[in-house]
Every structure is written in C-alpha cells, then in structure tokens.
C-alpha cells in the first residue's frame, strides 16, 4: 500500500525528517510513536501529497487517495455538522439522495445525529473529533492517516471507535496509519509500531508482532525517550 524510501524533509535550514524508510502493507494498522514536534504531522501530509518531500521516495498504491483525520479537526466553521460530513463527497458523482443517506448513516455511527444542524463552535472537542472521523470515513478511503485522532474522546467511545475501525479494516481492507501518544491503544490495535526520534527525526525502531503487555509498554516508553540507540 505504501512504500517510503529515504524520505527527508527540511524547511529551509531546519531538518525535520531524515532518511525515513518503511513499508506499510495493505490492510495493516501502523502506529507511529514519537516526541512532540518531531514532524509526525508533516510526515502524514507528505504521504497525503499535501506537502512535498525534500528527497526520497513516497510510493502510494495507485488509485489510492490517503485521507487525513487532523489533530486540530479543521472542520469548516461556516458549515453545520451535516454539511461538514457531506463536504468530502459533495463533488462526487452520485445522486444527492445517496449522499444524504450516507451522511445520515455516518451521523448515527458517531452518535451525533441529533446534532446535525449544529455548528462546530457549538460542539465540544470530542464531538468535533467525531465529526472529523465521519467526514473521513464517508469517502470509503483505502488509506486512513490518523493524527492523534481520539485524544479528546472518552475511553469507552475510543475503544468502540477502534473496534469499528478494525471491523471496517477487515471488511474493506482499509489500511490505517496513526500517529499517537497513546501507547496501550497502539499496542492493542496495531500490527506494527514505528518509533521516531527527536528532530532531525529518524526511525529509532520498528516493532512488529506487538502485544499489549506491560513489558512492551515499558519497552516502547523507554525507546521513545531521547538518547536511546536504534534497534530494528
């Protein structure tokens, strides 16, 4: 689904990403863990094609448009919840009735059907995050890039969303790459964990076959701290 080879990104003199190489198989769930400010969002943007790389290769499977679920939501403030979710499929070639049906389904999925006429400024952070999720999922993406997607949502709802996401993953072969600080959830749901260093950000470790054990959690915590050597 995705091949990254020697990806580097600098903003002028500031070297953000350095020589990143990793692969993502179709249908897998990857978690990227790293310190704040190490360029995780930039990485997602580059994968989605919104930002250019300075060097290296980013190869996305043909026909796939990676959808980003932003950490700071980026909902359109002048549109209500309904229209925000509709936004991503508004220009698609299908009858309006079907579009409306899809929006309705997603509204029910995120549990905000009663709020469909509300505006973003009237919603809590967690509610906005759910709208962002719906806006992304309605496009039936093949590759989903999550930027700390559930940081504002309560534990139970987060678990439910992860469960649903994994179910969609199984049914539709959805590939998910998430950037997160939530180590237990990352271990619980991912096939692979990539640990990034501080800036200039390199890959510190790639862990496959992870299990959500205390031992693993501690190991990852230690790895994501500065000053540790890389292990692959």
């Amino acid at each position, binding site marked *: 689904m995705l091949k990254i080879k020697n990806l580097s990104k600098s903003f002028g003199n500031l070297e953000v990403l350095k020589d990143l190489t990793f692969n993502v198989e179709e249908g897998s769930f990857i978690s990227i863990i790293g310190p704040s400010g190490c360029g995780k969002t930039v990485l997602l943007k580059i994968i989605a094609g919104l930002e250019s790389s300075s060097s290296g290769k980013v190869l996305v499977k043909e026909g796939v448009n990676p959808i980003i679920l932003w950490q700071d939501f980026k909902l*359109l403030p002048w549109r209500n919840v309904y229209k925000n979710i509709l936004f991503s499929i508004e220009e698609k070639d299908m009858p309006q009735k079907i579009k409306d049906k899809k929006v309705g389904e997603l509204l029910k999925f995120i549990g905000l059907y009663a709020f469909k006429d509300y505006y973003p400024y009237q919603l809590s952070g967690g509610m906005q995050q759910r709208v962002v999720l719906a806006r992304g999922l309605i496009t039936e993406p093949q590759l989903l890039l999550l930027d700390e997607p559930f940081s504002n949502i309560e534990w139970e709802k987060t678990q439910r969303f992860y469960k649903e996401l994994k179910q969609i993953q199984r049914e539709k072969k959805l590939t998910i790459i998430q950037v997160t600080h939530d180590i237990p959830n990352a271990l619980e749901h991912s096939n692979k964990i990539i640990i990034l260093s501080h800036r200039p950000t390199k890959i510190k470790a790639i862990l496959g076959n992870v299990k959500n054990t205390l031992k693993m959690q501690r190991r990852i915590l230690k790895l994501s701290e500065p000053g540790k050597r890389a292990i692959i």
Partner: protein
Amino acid sequence: MNKKIVFPIIAFLIILLSWEILVYFNIVNSLFLPAPLAILKSLLKEINYYLDSILVTFKHIIIGCFIGVCLAIPIGLIFGGNKNVDLSLSPLVLIISTIPIVTFLPLFILWFGLNEIPIYLCSIIAAFFPTFLNTLHGIKKIDKSFIEVAQNFQIKAVSRRVVFPASLPYISNGLRQSIQLVFLVTPSAEMIMGDVGLGGFIWKSANLFRMELVILGMITLGVIGFLLFKIYEFIEQKYVLKWMNVRKDAED
C-alpha cells in the same frame, strides 16, 4: 421598563425641551440656532421638497453602494487568487484609494457634465475601495488549513466552497466600511454639486439662510445613517457572525 429604550428617549426629550427654551428666551440667538419647533414648522412647509431630497439621496447611496460592491468583491477575489495581478496592480490601487473621493468631482463634471453622474461615480468609488481592500486582505488571511482539507478531499471548486465562505467575515467588514464611506461621501458630493439630494437641500437652504432646514437636513442624514448601520448589523449578525463567534476568538 426597558432602560435601553426609555432612557435615551427621555434624555432626548429633555435636550429638545432645553433647546426650545434657550431659543425662546433668546439666550441663544434664533438666527444662529433655530428652535426645534421652528424646524418642525419649516419641515411641514417644505415637506415635498424634503421628501424628494431624501429619496434622491437614497437612490445615490443604494445604487452607488450596490454597483461598487458588486465590482469590488469579484475583483477582490481575482486579485486575491492571482499573485502576479496582486503584486503589479495593488500598490496603484492603494494609492488611488487614499485620494479624497470628492476631489474627483471636477474631473467627473468635465467628463460627464453637470448632472447626477458625477455623484453616482463618487458613491460607487466610495463603496468600491473598502470592500475591495478587505476582500483582498481576507483572502490572504484565511486559514490555509481549510484549503488543505479541500485538497485532501480532492475538491475542485475550492474558491466557491472554501475561499469565499472563509473570507466572508472580512468581506462583511469591508461592506460595513463601504456603507460608512458612501454615507460620508455622497451627501458631500451632493453639496458640492449644489442642487440634488439632501446635500443639495442643505446647500440651497444655507444659501437662503434658512438654517432650520439646514439643521433638518443634517439630522435627517444622521438618522438615515443610524438606521442603515443598524440594519446592516442585523443582517451581518444573522448570516455571517453566526458561526464567526468562535473563529474571531480563536484568532485573538
């Protein structure tokens, strides 16, 4: 008892009464400041001319505003979307925008004659620049992330779906400034031209030393302006500021 409405009315009536008393007892010379009742008397005498003038000024303001704004928003969008156009032409436009608008009158009179066209042109220019400049500024100031979201979802009509709604608060601000400027400029232009509208009404009355009509004209302009702004504020609140509340705070 709604204090917001009752207090100003009472204060106004007290001021009116004091004014009448001051003139009545000749503490203030009625030649320099006619009394309210005298103004009322003259109003009733010249009611047709007065109402006619109001209508004419209204026409000048509304049509000028409409044309100016209809030109300003698309041209502003073009300048905002096209960096080369912006770089080459904006400095020139900015310089022209600072020229006091009524000073264009001699030129316009030469070109178009002693009729209402120079007044309309001044009104259009007054409406154009604030809306144009704010639209341009607004497009540059909108949050780039909205464009990124549109890009991510491969939206084609980005201008219509994202840029324009996102710049509406700025455009709306420009509209308000346009209305203010048109309101400033139009009666002045009418006064300089000397015969039509409330500006002409004031000027002609002043020439005949009918000060009560001059004051009537001034008060009328004040009231019309006040009403216009209140109406605009209401429209803005309902259609633009609805969702803007948090946006504005977020910017601060």
